[in-house]
Structures are given as structure tokens and as C-alpha cells.
């Protein structure tokens, strides 16, 4: 490693050494073992600073993500401040109110509604205390040298979400995870490392809505790791709306394991953030499992959104579909790198991928790169990618009917995003809310 690279990881090594004793005292031994393994790998490999020859980080500069020096915070406390006021009042509300609320990555039990009945919905810290034997296999199986940012999360995570659905259970209303950045005064550049673990036993079904909101003053690094384990015939609908501060960098590492007949439906909406990187790794290990991934990103100004998706078809008769769209304004950039792997003997796989971008300004840039690794003959794969601007002919058609150029553009741009909403498999409440946020954002640009 060069000196520059070492200088970037050094501070984090010392932070880790400082908090190590705290981890050792409080955490279960398997957690400490996982952290130690991650530490060794981190010291050895550091961060993927090199862009040349590194396809995964070719268009997103890790140096920029780590430009600032991030630190851990002790605790976000602000006297009698009522954190409930930070939750937007218009987000969907359900009778069951299964809600987990985090401020700067810290769990706020007083504002959460946790459940320990049939389905466990709780903070990960609590989960580690009460259900260590369920959690252990999913922490220990992290191969030590996996991904730098996964290791980085393993080093520092202290809390997060733990959801466990026993066999044949169904949660009728969505479980909400609310992440809020809160900052007054000078930005502290906080390192936030949330960890989400969701386990769905056979034939269980749940829906998760995650909402992320930032404050203008925040300038953090949120490096999260999520793991979703879907056992036979289980179903997970996941929707995430990210609207962090435009100075916050956000990296999401998501791994989904799908067993036989299970279904994963995801939706990622990226509105906020400075540099945002979503790594979504889907492993279809059981026959007839299926994954539908939908994404919409609307970067503005100098925002940079990078979606890296790997779908690994490890079994026959598996299905996957990626539908991503971007609408770019200002001098923003987007990256879409979608890979589909079809293993030997994975016959009758049906996989498709699409990424379309609408550039609203001459300064915005969209990079889209499909990749296929096919080792089996009897399969069906398709992909499509496109980048373009508002179609002038369509614009004339609408204005020739009396619609102002501004309103015509709004109609066309909303129309571009329309099929994303048609593909959402979440509740009507969630869809309506998401659509409102998108329209608000788009209309403000035109």
C-alpha cells in the first residue's frame, strides 16, 4: 500500500483500537471474532482506491468518499429535544405501527414500536442479547476478505435492525425503518455503520419500508450492511427511500439469499446523498426463486449515484428482473453496473435487465454498463440500456395542444418514471407517498 492509502486507513485503525475494549466487554464472542477477522482483512486490503483496472469502482472515486475524516460519536443527546419532530408527518401510517427509529444510526426505543410476539422486530443490539444463536451464523459466515466496505461496517457497527419471521408467519402491515441524520452546529462528519439482518423462515411474508432523511447540516458517512435471508417459499417486499443530506456519503451493501420458491421484491429511490453507492448482491440459490429489483435515482447538482447489482442464478428455473431508471439534473452523475451470472446447470433461467436515463442538463452524465456471465445454454436473458434527453418532437406534440412548455416537460418527465411506479409491489400508501416525493423533486427542476 502507498503512504497515501495507509494514511487514509490509519485513523480508522486507531479509532477501532480505542473502541475495541468496549466491544469486547459488551458483545458476544462470535461478534468479536467477526470483528477481529474483519480488522485483519481491513488492515491488509484497506479501501479500493485504485480505479484503473478496477471495474467495480471505475466510475466512483473512493478517495472522494473518504476525503473527510469521519469519527464515531458517543451518543446523540440534546437535552429535552423531541426527536419525534424529525419524522415527517406525511409518511405512511399503519395501524400496527411496527416502527424502528434511528437517529445518526442510534436506536431510539422510546420512539419505536417493537414487537417480540410471533415475529421479532427489534434493534440488532437487543437481538444479539436475546437471539445470539439465530444471529451467529450470519455474522460468522462473512468471508474475512470480502468487500472493504463490508469489513469497514463489521469493524464499527454497534446496532441496527433485527427482524425474524418464524415459519408461516405474516406481518400484515409494513415494518418501517426510519433513519434520520440529526445535526446542529458544526458538522461532525460522523461515521454511521448500520447493520440490518432479516431472516424469513419458510412460508413467511413481510414487507419493509425504509425511509432515510437528512438534515442540511449533516455531512456523514453512512456505510450500511444489510442481509436478507429468505427461506423456502418466503416473501420479502422491500422499499427504500433515501433522502440524506447532499453532503453525506452513503454506501449500502445488501446481500440477499433466496432459497427455493422464495421471492424478493426491492425498490430503491435515491434522492439525497453526495456520493451514493448501492451494492445489491442477489443469490438465487434455490429453484424457482425470483427477484424483482426496481430503482429510481434523481441526482441533482453534484450528486453521484452508483448502483451495482449482481444477480447470481445458482439454480435452475430462477427468475430475475432489474428495472432501473435515472433522471439527472445539474452536473450530477449516475452509474449503473448490472451483472447477471447464470451458472452451469441453471437451466430455464429467465433474467432481464434495463437501465434508462433521462438527462435534463448538458452537464449531467450517465454511465450504464450491463454484464452477463452465462455458463448454461437453455436460458433466456435480455437487457436494454439508454440515455437521452427530453424528446423535442414529443414536446412539440404536447405544446401544440396548448400545454405550456414547462408543464409539457413535467408531463414527459413524470411519464418517463411512470413504469417504475407501475412495477412497485408495495402498499398503496407507500406508492402514493413515494410518487409524491418524486413529483415534488422533478417539478422543482422544471
Amino acid at each position, binding site marked *: 500500500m502507498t503512504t497515501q492509502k495507509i494514511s487514509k486507513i490509519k485513523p480508522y485503525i486507531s479509532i477501532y483500537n480505542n473502541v475495541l475494549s468496549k466491544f469486547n466487554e459488551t458483545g458476544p464472542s462470535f461478534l468479536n471474532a467477526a470483528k477481529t477477522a474483519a480488522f485483519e482483512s481491513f488492515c491488509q486490503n484497506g479501501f479500493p482506491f485504485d480505479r484503473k483496472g478496477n471495474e467495480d469502482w471505475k466510475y466512483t472515486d473512493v478517495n472522494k468518499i473518504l476525503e473527510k475524516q469521519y469519527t464515531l460519536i458517543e451518543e446523540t443527546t440534546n437535552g429535552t429535544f423531541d426527536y419525534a419532530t424529525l419524522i415527517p408527518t406525511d409518511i405512511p401510517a399503519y395501524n400496527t405501527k411496527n416502527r424502528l427509529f434511528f437517529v445518526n444510526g442510534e436506536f431510539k426505543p422510546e420512539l419505536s414500536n417493537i414487537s417480540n410476539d410471533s415475529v421479532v422486530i427489534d434493534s440488532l443490539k437487543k437481538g444479539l442479547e436475546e437471539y445470539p444463536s439465530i444471529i451467529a451464523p450470519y455474522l460468522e459466515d462473512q468471508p474475512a476478505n470480502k468487500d472493504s466496505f463490508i469489513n469497514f461496517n463489521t469493524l464499527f457497527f454497534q446496532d441496527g435492525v433485527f427482524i425474524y419471521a418464524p415459519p408461516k408467519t405474516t406481518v400484515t402491515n409494513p415494518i418501517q425503518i426510519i433513519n434520520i441524520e440529526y445535526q446542529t452546529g458544526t458538522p461532525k462528519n460522523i461515521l454511521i455503520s448500520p447493520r440490518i439482518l432479516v431472516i424469513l423462515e419458510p412460508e413467511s411474508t413481510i414487507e419493509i419500508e425504509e425511509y432515510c432523511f437528512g438534515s442540511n447540516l449533516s455531512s456523514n458517512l453512512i456505510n450500511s450492511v444489510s442481509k436478507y435471508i429468505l427461506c423456502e417459499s418466503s416473501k420479502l417486499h422491500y422499499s427504500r427511500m433515501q433522502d440524506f443530506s447532499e453532503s453525506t456519503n452513503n454506501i449500502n451493501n445488501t446481500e440477499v439469499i433466496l432459497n427455493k420458491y422464495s421471492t424478493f421484491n426491492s425498490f430503491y429511490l435515491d434522492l439525497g446523498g453526495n456520493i451514493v453507492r448501492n451494492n445489491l448482491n442477489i443469490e438465487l440459490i434455490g429453484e424457482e426463486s425470483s427477484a424483482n429489483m426496481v430503482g429510481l435515482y434523481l441526482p441533482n447538482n453534484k450528486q453521484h449515484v452508483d448502483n451495482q447489482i449482481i444477480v447470481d442464478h445458482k439454480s435452475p428455473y430462477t427468475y430475475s428482473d432489474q428495472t432501473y431508471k435515472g433522471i439527472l439534473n445539474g452536473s450530477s452523475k449516475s452509474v449503473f453496473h448490472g451483472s447477471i451470472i447464470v451458472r452451469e446447470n441453471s437451466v430455464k433461467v429467465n433474467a432481464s435487465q434495463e437501465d434508462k436515463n433521462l438527462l435534463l442538463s448538458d452537464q449531467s452524465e450517465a454511465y450504464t454498463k450491463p454484464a452477463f456471465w452465462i455458463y448454461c445454454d437453455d436460458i433466456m436473458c435480455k437487457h436494454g440500456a439508454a440515455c437521452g434527453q427530453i424528446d423535442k418532437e414529443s414536446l*412539440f406534440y404536447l405544446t401544440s395542444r396548448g400545454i405550456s412548455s414547462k408543464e409539457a416537460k413535467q408531463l414527459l418527465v413524470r411519464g418517463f418514471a411512470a413504469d417504475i411506479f407501475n412495477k412497485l409491489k408495495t402498499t398503496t400508501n407507500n406508492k402514493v407517498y413515494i410518487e409524491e416525493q418524486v413529483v415534488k423533486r422533478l417539478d422543482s427542476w422544471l
Partner: protein
Amino acid sequence: MLEVKDLHSSVGEKTILNGVNLNIKPGEIHAIMGPNGSGKSTLSYTIAGKPNYTVNSGDIYFENQSIKDTLPETRAQLGIFLSFQHPLEIAGVRMDQFMRSAYNSVQKQNNGEELDVLKFNKLLKGKTEELNIEAGLIQRYVNHGFSGGERKKNEILQMAVLNPKLMILDEPDSGLDIDAVRSVADGINKLRSDSKSTIIITHYQRILNYVIPDYVHIFMDGKIIESGDKSLALKVEEKGYEIFN
């Protein structure tokens, strides 16, 4: 209602119209016939105000006001409607949304009542019934997956909703079978009145059997070279455009 005076216009660098003169009074139907590439569509786009279609000299007056420097939406709000030869498909925009936006824009400009979704959909549905158009079309994206006939009928539907003073129909019959031509012609006839004017641009006189023009103009090389009554259309049908060369 419409007066085109010695109009010269170009698309980009290319000059297409070379001195068009046309005077249309309320209630009149004018047919403009001409061979491919003679500039008929350019004339319709220039009147509708398509960007990139530049007026080099001459003028266009609508109800005695020059419109050559106005935006296309302004012209539509004043009451000019262009039925496209090739109506566009607009992904993700539903017919009812699109038409309500257009209707309310026109109403707003003319101090008329803007309609909410319920009231407007009632109006729109009424128009589909009047014109014998399948009501399901209004729930679909604009022209998305529409057949050629459906697209042309959809133009007539839009015209019926917006109720323009001047209807410019650019080849409303192209690509249609005889039944569809008749049905489009029926639609045009239903929308006619003594206070409205119509321009029909066409290659063939076929549609003029159903929509009887008051005047027929022969358009070649970017201008009108001969004008007459309906018999001129029959002459073209019989002998082709070559006789005008």
C-alpha cells in the same frame, strides 16, 4: 380567420416555403393537395409554430393578429389545432391526464372554467361516445400501442375536446382503410360549423368525397400554384400532379 401572406419559411438551413398566400374565412373548408415533398406538412407546422421552422419573410395572421412570433402553445390557446400526420406515442402519459392539461390550459387562457378530474373525465367520455371511439383509449398512454386508425381517431377526439376555431388536418386519411377514412371524415364533419374553418392536407381526393371542400389548392415547390373548387381535386385524381409541371 387565417391569412397567410407571401410566406417564406425554412427548416434549419433548407428553404421550403416559397411565398404561400392563403385566405380562409370562417366556416370554409380548404383542401391542400400536392405531391410528396412539396412542403404541405411544412406549411402546417409553420402555422402551428413548430420550433426550428423559421419564417424568413411574409406573415401569418390569425383573427387579424400576427402569430408568426408566438409559441406553439399560444397558437393552440388562440384556437389553432394541428392534427398530426404521424401522431406521437408518449410513454407514461395517460390520455386523460394529457387532455385535461391541454383543456385547462386553453380554458385558462380564454377565461373559461377549468375542470377537475371528475368533471373533465365526464366531458372526455361524452366526446368518445359522440365520436364512436372506444372509451378504453382514454385510460391508456397517449397513442401507446394504438393502431394507425386509432391514432387518427385520437387526433379527432383531441380536436373535439379542445374545440378549436381552425382545424388543420395533415393527411387525416393516410394509412387508413376505407371504413376508417369514413369514420375520421364523420368526426371532422361533426366538428364543423359556420364559425370554424378547416384545412385538409392530402395526397388523394378520397377523403374529399366525405368532407366536401369549398376550395382546393394545388401545392408544389413550396407554394400554391393553382386554386379552384372540388373539381380540381377530381382532375388531380384523374391525371396526376404532372399536368401542373
